[in-house]
Each structure stands twice: as structure tokens, then as C-alpha cells.
């Protein structure tokens, strides 16, 4: 795409961009239901102690790999990483949430920027993971910016979900997001150069597994 990559970054990361992520809490709804995250302080602790480390050890290094493949036009590598992400995401609901958001973004990308690599990749893997599609989407943007945009989507998405789940106002939520992003910003460049590793989080896994079987729920995940 010949458009200004930074302006494209703003568009693709705008809350009005129809990714469908507003419908997901990624396990947070069950953690609220089970009493683990009930307050603003608990939310911040959850983001700092559980979400941020997983982003830095797994998601960001994986994103760097996907972005490199997208820049190189390496569709088989993108597809291989996409398949591997299924194995890393143990709860079915987290796999499905990632693929729902990814496929929605990929469909839109195919309409906005039907480049050869987008068309080829979509034909190969139409229900792709959010991480891989975002890397493809932002392949014209420098990795450091693109990775920050992806990480922001994760943090902001959980912040938005939290306002529907716990008693927290917009200002308090933005203050928490701001502090989490400061921590993220201090570490993300180091993380970009690290090999992909996992992060121990049985709590989110169990929450997501339980959420999939909940009798009533607000969010898809």
C-alpha cells in the first residue's frame, strides 16, 4: 500500500476499526466472576503481573517473527506460525477468540489492501490468528511501532472489557492503562529481540476453560 504507513497504523489501531475485539474479555470475565479481579487495584495487578509478562515473553517475540515473515513475503512461514499458535493457546476459547478477531481483520484488510501477499495468505489461512494478521496488516510499519500497536490492542482491549465487568471509571481505567504502557515501553525493545518462550498462567487458562462452559456471560471469550 502506498499510503502513509503511520496514518495506516492509526486507522488499523483505531477503536472504530471493526475488529470485533470489543466482544472479548480473554478470560477476564470469569476471573471477575470467580473473585480474582474485583477492584481497580486487582485489575492493575492482573495486567502487570500476568498479562504484561506473557506479552513480553511470548506475544511480542512471536509478533516479531510474524512481522519478519510478512515483510519478507514469506507466506508459508506465516502459516506455520499461525498453526503453532494453536498449540500454544491451550484453551479452545482463546484460540477461537484470536482466530475470530484475526479473520475479521483479515477480511477487512483484503478489502482495504488487496495486495498479493494478503490475497495469497487469506486463501491459505482465512481464519488466521490475530497476532499473525496484525503483523501482516502492519508490515509497512517499522517493527518497533507495529509491535507496540499490537501490544496496545491487547492492553486496551482488556481495559475496555474491565469497564463492563468491575466498578471502575474511565479515568481510573486510563490511568491503569497508562501505567501498564509505561512498563511495557521500558521492556518491549528488549523483548523484540528475544526468542519465543512461554509464560506460566494457569489462572487465565482455567478461567478461559470455565468461561467457555458458563451458563451466562457477557463476552464471547
Amino acid at each position, binding site marked *: 500500500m502506498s499510503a502513509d504507513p503511520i496514518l495506516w497504523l492509526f486507522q488499523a489501531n483505531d477503536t472504530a476499526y471493526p475488529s470485533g475485539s470489543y466482544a472479548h474479555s480473554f478470560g477476564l470475565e470469569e476471573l471477575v466472576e*470467580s473473585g*480474582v479481579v474485583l477492584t481497580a487495584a486487582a485489575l492493575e*495487578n492482573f495486567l*502487570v*503481573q*500476568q498479562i*504484561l*509478562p506473557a506479552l513480553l515473553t511470548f506475544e511480542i517475540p512471536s509478533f516479531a517473527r510474524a512481522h519478519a515473515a510478512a515483510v519478507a513475503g514469506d507466506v508459508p512461514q506465516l502459516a506455520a506460525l499461525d*498453526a*503453532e499458535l*494453536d*498449540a*500454544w493457546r*491451550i*484453551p*479452545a*476459547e482463546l484460540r477461537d477468540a484470536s482466530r475470530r478477531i484475526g479473520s475479521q481483520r483479515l477480511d477487512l484488510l483484503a478489502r482495504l489492501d488487496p495486495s498479493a501477499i494478503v490475497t495469497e495468505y487469506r486463501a491459505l489461512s482465512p481464519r488466521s490468528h490475530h497476532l499473525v494478521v496484525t503483523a501482516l496488516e502492519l508490515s509497512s510499519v517499522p517493527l518497533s511501532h507495529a509491535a507496540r500497536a499490537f501490544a496496545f490492542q491487547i492492553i486496551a482491549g482488556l481495559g475496555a472489557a474491565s469497564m463492563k465487568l468491575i466498578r471502575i471509571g474511565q479515568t481510573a481505567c486510563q490511568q491503569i492503562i497508562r501505567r501498564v504502557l509505561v512498563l511495557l515501553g521500558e521492556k518491549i525493545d528488549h523483548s523484540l529481540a528475544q526468542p519465543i*518462550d*512461554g*509464560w*506460566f*498462567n*494457569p*489462572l*487465565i*487458562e*482455567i*478461567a*478461559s*476453560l*470455565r468461561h*467457555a*462452559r458458563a451458563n451466562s456471560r457477557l463476552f464471547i471469550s
Partner: protein
Amino acid sequence: MNTCLSNASTGRPVSGSSISGHLTLRCENRADGVPIISQQSFRAPIHLSKSYIDQGQRVLSIVNPTAGFFDGDQLETKIHVGAGARLVLSTPSASRVYRTRSGAAAVNAQQFRIEEDAALEWIPEPFIPHAGARYVQRTQIDLHPGATLLFFDWIAPGRVAMGEVFAYQNLRWEFDLFLGEALIARERYDLTPGGASLEALRAKFPAAHYLSIYASGKMTRHWPAEALDALTSEQVYLGHGPLSGGVYVIRALCQDSLSARKLIEGLRVLLYAAAEEKPPALGRIFC
């Protein structure tokens, strides 16, 4: 055989008393359909008990005569269950890893291969990391799509009765599950007290025991979802769900060892009942 786990050594000097042992085991069906141990080779820190048949399965206990892993110890385990054979592997007591004195980790690399129509149950007693322990466990399972698996992992917080709760130095866990050629579950994590890595364990219970169970084949044909849901209680936080290819996962955090043991006993009964079978006796005090 799929190969994905890293083989990097710990890179640290070890004490002169460290042990490099192995266990190689093959279980196959005899001509009359009885599962037998057709090949076995082991060396300290591993010893094998005499095996027996119960509920049509070969049951075998793996004994650690040195009472646990010390720094620098290395164990390489290769378990192969041939087509149609049924094997249950257990341990008579908890697996322990002791405080490292040299700074080196004990390393336990284990590979399981389960062929068509074969069945493996892996149900060790809890893994108890002592204060100051360093340990690496690498597990790879190659599961035929037509095989049955029931695989338990139980990580205790430490010697709780001695006041050791998450007092180890570092645990490194690597796990790959292949269904045929497809990687369907991958786990990599470090547990290091003092950082955020134990936050998810502590958030629900201050001295949580962690259980991870993978099940496939006969165990999942009539998945007892409602009965599993009902196992969550004040002492247990449990979730379960499908991976791909008919493989299921169960994760649980338990308040203490008693609730963890009770849960495992209940899960065995439930999952074997779902397979319309009875669980083989493990020949130990519990279960």
C-alpha cells in the same frame, strides 16, 4: 519421531556426585493380547518395580532409590507403548528435587511414544521442589490419533509442612504434545519465586498445587463435562476443554495436597468410567 524440545545443557559446573541415568521401556502385546514389558533398561537414579496386570493393563512403578534429584543429575526417559498395548506408569512416592549446591539444575528429559490402539496412563505422585532447588523437565509425547492417553502432572509448592512454600530457585518446564505429526499443545515456562511467574499460582490459593492433565482416545469419547464442572469447589479451581483431534486438557489449582490428591482420585474414576472401564490399582497407599 517429532523433535522440537531443546537439548541445551544447563551450562553450569556440577558437583562430582551428580548422576546421569536413563530409563528405556517398551511395552507390547504378547501373541495372546497380554501387554508385556518387551524391553527395559535403566540406571540410577531410576529403578523399576515388578510389574503386574490389572484391568487388562500392565502396571509398573518407577522408583527413585536416591530419594530425588540432586543438582546436575540428568535422567533421560524413553517410553514406547506398541500398537494395542496398555501400560500404566506410576511412582510409589513423591518425586523430589533438592537444593542445588553447585548452582546447576537437575534435568529430566522424557519422551513418550504411544502407537495405534495403545494406551498409556502416566500418573506420578507429586513433584516436590525443595528450597533452593533448580530443575528442568522436558516432555515430548508422540501420540497416534488412535491411541489413548491419560497424562498427569502435579507440581507441589514445596515442603509446605516444613514452611517451604515456593522456596525453590527455578523450575523450567517444557512440554510438547504431537498428535500424529501435528503439534497440538506446547508449554514453556519458568517458575521463579521473587518474580511475577508465580502470581497466577498464588492469586487463588497462597500455596497452590498445580495439576495438568491431558486425555485422549477412550478417555474422551464420552467426555464427562458436567461431572468435571462439579469438581470445582472452595478448595479446587478447575477448567477443562478440547484441544484438536479429540484430545482434552484439564487444569486445576488446588488449595493443598489433600484437595489435589482427592481431585486426582476423582478424576481417575470419572475418566475411566467415561471409557467404560475401571482404573487399575496403582499398588500404592493412595489411589
